[in-house]
């Protein structure tokens, strides 16, 4: 399915959370939900892809919380954004996925463990969470994903095109794009 509804509607910009070389041959964008088990399963595979392709790959994470299906997904996204204000977005992103099975059943109380693990000041985070910019960022990510044809989580875009298929072929398609550029 490669039609106009399957193209990244919002280009990657300075507003995004990005890891890796800004001039990399491949930009991989994930629309993810921190409470989604499938995203949790994808997390170590994304890490492997990042490791394998190193300087050839930039990874961008955007929020796509399915709040009715996953009642703490939105709160987790907010927490990641609040951590981002402290320069710890990726640390929180990693903690949320690495500990998903532990915190998800406990909701907000489970998420507090993440703040402690990262040494974040709970009062500062609580104040940041009241900032409407946090919700606005998540909403902007979500609606941008909807317009890009995101149909569930995780959804991946390789250089702007929605990728549909299994993880092995995602790795190979990234490898092919890189090979073509060298």
């Amino acid at each position: 399915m490669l039609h106009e509804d399957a193209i990244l509607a919002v280009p990657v910009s300075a507003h995004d959370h990005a890891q890796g070389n800004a001039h990399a041959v491949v930009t991989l964008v994930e629309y993810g939900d921190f409470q989604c088990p499938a995203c949790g399963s994808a997390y170590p595979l994304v890490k492997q892809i990042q490791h394998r392709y190193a300087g050839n790959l930039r990874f961008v994470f955007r929020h796509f919380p399915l709040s009715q299906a996953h009642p703490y997904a939105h709160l987790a996204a907010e927490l990641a954004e609040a951590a981002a204000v402290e320069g710890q977005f990726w640390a929180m992103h990693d903690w949320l996925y690495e500990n998903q099975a532990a915190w998800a059943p406990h909701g907000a109380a489970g998420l507090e463990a993440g703040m402690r693990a990262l040494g974040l000041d709970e009062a500062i985070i609580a104040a940041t969470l009241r900032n409407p910019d946090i919700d606005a960022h998540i909403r902007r990510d979500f609606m941008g994903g909807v317009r890009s044809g995101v149909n569930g989580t995780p959804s991946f875009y390789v250089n702007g095109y929605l990728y549909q298929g299994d993880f092995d072929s995602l790795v190979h398609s990234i490898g092919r794009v890189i090979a073509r550029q060298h």
Partner: protein
Amino acid sequence: MTMLAASTAAPEFTLHSTPDQSVSLKEFRSRNVILAFYPADWSPVCSDQLALYNELLDEFARLNAQLLAISVDGVWSHAALARDRKYHFPLLSDFEPKGQVARAYGVYEEQAGVAQRALFVIDGDGVIRWSYLSPMGVNPGAAGIVKALEALPSNNIQKTLPIDAAREAP
């Protein structure tokens, strides 16, 4: 069987949404309606598709649209699914005569005996403005629905507003 196309009058229907409630298309005159036909309750792709739409009800409301999902499943299956998945929109039961409404819209899959995965956007005058048939196993997402709703003349005002400004306006 050919799917009804844009500019066609949307066939009227009245279907049960629960054992003792029914929903008629004509109740939504002057509002836009999104009809989402899907093959079956509980199947994973459908559920992802409806879970996504469930997150977009505010956005659909902003575009003056009501979502109605339709399958040939019975009302008790619908009730259990809606409760389990926390769906906040009607699931209509095209159960007896089976698939009658799906047939009227040209999206009944005879061999499997289920509705195809088809989307319609119907305007406030009861006219189909957009339709889309997705392959059975492919979740079509919501990009096409949102674009079709935004393109309706009655929603044109929204086009000039950035999405966040429109949402946050009091």
